């Protein structure tokens, strides 16, 4: 055993000690591992399709600039900008800025996590969330996928959650969901592993005994890493500015009438209110049904409840827009109605303003609102814009 100590353990300890001190030298560290320089913003972060593509926009999230800003969060609706997209229409007509974040798959848990990472910027933040009902059905009801989650929740964001012990229930929920998704992450980063282990440690005394040393070692290593790299977790303090109302007059009625007629001109090969190209390319007169899963298996619904709870608890000035689905195409929307009512009730209970486009009855469905079966047309977007402008009193 003496030989083991002298020939193996002692050299190993000396190596670790030497490496630590060598790595602590900033000259060695920076030359071996040069930090990627954050590129200067070539344009303001108006539409952030993912944070992984625009990491330089992370600091501007939920941060007001010189004037108040609205933050629009959603999924696939936000891609494919038109003149009616809120992040183009609103800044064009008002001084108020609008930052949109999201693309397909950016569902409730991804949004929840982004907001939780920036929880001390939530108070008074003007946040409009576009809810796509499809999130709550079929395979989407299983919640945000791990791939999409990582596109919007960087290690930086997750470290903020992981290192913030004041978040109690919200952090517990985050850990639980991360743990649930854990096997889907191909090479989970430090923060994700830490959250998973913390969740695991709470399961039983045996789990605790096994995971506690792992968690403590990880914490020590993370602290060492931050010390060596000079990384700091604090970020710019929030600057919340009031929204200044502009004297802008928009003739909504004529805008609605005109845009609707323009949209309807593109829906001539069917009577379902679906754009010609989409109808001939994807639908061809064949209807579909949505798969409704029971509430207890609907992770997305639970994620949504936590999202509402977080926004309410942190005093955000949130609002919601519930997108419709085409009832001509989806023939069983009445089966989905209880879930939508549930969502509506959650929003009402939290006293957040919302605009609900959802209908189950074909006779009540306004053709032209959607361009396909679940995405807003320009006409639909103008209606959404009006709701945002009215909710946040952008016009005098």
């Amino acid at each position, binding site marked *: 055993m003496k030989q*083991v100590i002298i*020939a193996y353990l002692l050299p190993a300890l000396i190596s670790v000690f030497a490496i630590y001190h060598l790595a602590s030298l900033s000259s060695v560290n920076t030359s071996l591992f040069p930090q990627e320089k954050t590129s200067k913003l070539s344009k303001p972060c108006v539409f952030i399709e993912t944070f992984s593509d625009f990491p330089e926009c992370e600091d501007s999230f939920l941060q007001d600039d010189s004037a108040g800003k609205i933050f629009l969060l959603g999924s696939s609706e936000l891609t494919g900008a038109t003149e009616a997209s809120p992040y183009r229409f609103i800044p064009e007509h008002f001084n108020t800025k609008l930052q949109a974040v999201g693309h397909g798959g950016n569902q409730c848990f991804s949004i929840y996590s982004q907001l939780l990472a920036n929880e001390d910027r939530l108070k008074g933040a003007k946040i409009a969330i576009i809810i796509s009902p499809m999130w709550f059905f079929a395979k989407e009801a299983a919640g945000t996928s791990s791939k999409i989650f990582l596109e919007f929740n960087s290690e930086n964001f997750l470290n903020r959650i992981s290192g913030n012990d004041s978040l109690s229930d919200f952090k517990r929920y985050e850990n639980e969901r991360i743990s649930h998704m854990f096997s889907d992450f191909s090479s989970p980063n430090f923060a994700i592993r830490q959250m998973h282990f913390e969740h695991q440690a709470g399961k039983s005394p045996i789990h605790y005994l*096994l995971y506690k040393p792992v968690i403590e070692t990880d914490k020590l290593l993370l602290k060492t890493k931050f010390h060596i790299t000079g990384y700091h977790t604090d970020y710019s303090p929030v600057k919340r500015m009031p929204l200044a109302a502009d004297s802008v007059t928009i003739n909504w009625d004529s805008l609605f009438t005109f845009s609707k007629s323009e949209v309807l001109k593109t829906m001539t090969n069917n009577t379902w209110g679906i754009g010609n190209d989409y109808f001939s390319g994807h639908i061809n007169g064949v209807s579909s049904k949505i798969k409704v899963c029971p509430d207890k298996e609907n992770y997305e619904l639970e994620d949504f409840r936590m999202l509402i709870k977080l926004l309410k608890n942190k005093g955000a000035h949130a609002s919601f827009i519930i997108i419709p689905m085409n009832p001509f195409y989806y023939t069983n929307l009445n089966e989905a109605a209880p879930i939508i009512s549930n969502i509506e009730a959650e929003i009402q209970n939290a006293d957040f303003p919302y605009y609900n486009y959802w209908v189950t009855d074909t006779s009540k469905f306004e053709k032209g609102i959607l361009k396909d079966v679940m995405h807003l047309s320009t006409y639909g977007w103008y209606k959404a814009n009006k709701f945002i402008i009215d909710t946040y009193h952008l016009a005098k």
Partner: protein
Amino acid sequence: MLPFSSFEFFIIMAMFIGIMAGAKFFLSNKYYKLVQAVLNLIFLTVVYPHPYHFLLLILYAYFGTYLVSDVLKIKKKFVGIVILLLPMLLVKFDIRFHFYPYELNKIISFAGLSYASFRIIGYYMDKAPGEKMTDFITYFNFLAFTPTLLIGPIDRHARFKVSQDNGFNNINSENVIIGINAFVKGLAFKYIFAEAIDRYWMGHYPAQSKDLVDMAHNMYSYYFYLFFDFAGYSFMALGIGKLMGMNVPLNFNNPFVAVNPQDFWRRFHISLGDWLKDYFFTPLYMFFSRKKSLKKYPLTRQNIALLLTFMLMGCWNGFKFYYLLSGFLFGLYSVVHNTYVVECKKKGRDIMFGNMDPRAIKVVSIFIMFNLVAVALYIFSGKCPL
């Protein structure tokens, strides 16, 4: 958390090694298997992603083996093999039942199923008729030993039991040194060499390119990566095993210097090569030997058995064309080499190299073998654009 998937696994292993080393001072050897069973069970239930799946498989395999060999006393081993392989066959063939609308994969597929299946079949094949079943704890440890849980090496029950029975005695200075050496070698292979190849070589050339230089880069980088990655795992498993008092078999031994296919499989994934030889090639060869039509043709018998053995090895990874083709290629290499050896013996001279200097023959053989293996593994990778 899967074994070796992140460095936290090593923290847990360090705890296990510490517990084993501590237990050595308080308990006698007969308690070693109990301590190991507790640790294996803790890892499976607390750390492993699908604990119940694995535990159910172990129960199924243990009682399945007992039923087939001791109760029903089925003489045809093939029937028993199919019964014991059923969970893996359902997954590999993606078989679904109308009364269960979901993919069966979801309930019986989990990391480590293939390697557990190898060991299950190994035990069943080794068990002589009338031989008493091994005790459940040993069987459980045999299938669930944490360092070899995921990707082997594929141990044999008899070997494992001997090692387990002397578990605490095996924890000594000599084995600790061997263990640390193997572990550090594995760490270097996996986290330095394989990682460097992955970062700076593999994938730096377009995968779909048919340019010879690009293809050569992709082919050689994959071969080196596969070796260092896999051998890295195996050495780490061997090292941790030694530190815990278990002799895990050596799985890689300088495969780049193999001079022929037979030599290659004695150096590369040794435990798989041995497993296939003992449990597939030999019984198949014996089966062919009993066939009247093949009795006169021993070389043909051998070659058919070789080809089928390697094709089975290809299929084992999944029913993809490139796995099958890669297996076929390895089989073909063996068939050609086998025929060459027999012909040389018949004619009493080397029919290919003649009187060439043996050292030169060795160099040429290594060069040929290295490239043939690289080609077969390139096809195995599924990245060959041809």
